[in-house]
């Protein structure tokens, strides 16, 4: 069993990063940059935010490998499903 004893100050620091990234992710869509780049940056920022929550608030950084497997297996299934459906979208629409 993992027991993480991070301090309240550390959790507030992570929250400050999350708020900063929220502002950054929102500002990106208004910047005069190519849409594809903006789209990539917006979802990269979202991925970093999710990563911070998962790693530090859900304490995945200190978890057993079994928990990683349980969490990542459905993500793998989703990716396979999306890739499987891509040709249908690309060639039929």
């Amino acid at each position: 069993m993992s027991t993480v004893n991070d301090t309240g100050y550390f959790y507030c620091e992570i929250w400050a990063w999350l708020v900063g990234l929220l502002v950054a992710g929102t500002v990106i869509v208004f910047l005069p940059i190519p849409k594809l780049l903006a789209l990539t940056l917006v979802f990269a920022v979202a991925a970093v935010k999710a990563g911070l929550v998962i790693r530090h608030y859900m304490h995945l950084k200190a978890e057993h490998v079994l928990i990683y497997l349980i969490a990542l297996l459905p993500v793998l299934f989703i990716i396979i499903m999306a890739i499987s459906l891509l040709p249908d979208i690309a060639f039929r629409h």
Partner: protein
Amino acid sequence: MEAEFTLGTPSLTPQGDAITRLPTGKVGIWIFLAGEIMIFGGLISCYILLRIANGGWAADAAHVNWQIGTLNTLVLLTSSLTMILALAAVRAGNRDGVKLYLASTVALGLLFLLVKAYEYLAHFREGFTPLTGTFWSFYYLMTGLHALHVTGGIVVNLVLLIMAIRGTLWARADRRMEYAGIYWHFVDVVWIFLFPLLYLSLKLT
């Protein structure tokens, strides 16, 4: 090895505990979340693929209010902070802190739902219902399902808060708070992806 067995949940078999040293409750909550990942992941994948196939639904997406979406994201991120602070308070033996942070999490969850209800009402007044088009079907389905999960989390946190006030929480407070927190943070993570997909996409289509 005997000392390690005593750290696990009593209902675990010694064999299982010796292999993973994971409490059944923790494995259970993560298996539950794996199912949730399939539900939300499947929905999000279908949304992205259909949106690409249908040219982005820019006209429909223009009607969602990104300012309100940003505010609600801030509310949910802050509720995640108060939830983890409640767990930290449990581990520090700060019982008043646990009550304060749990109550704050419940209040922020309710605020999130209130803002969401305000948004729904505004959209309905404009004539955008789940039957208006594919974008709106996805919008109501994904945000509605997420709101149901927020409601579930509020109920769990409220039960924990009542237990804390009555003094019945403390026997296994650490694990109870940890599992409730894992669920609450997961709901937050789902919103972190729904926000750019539904609210910020206007400028990107």
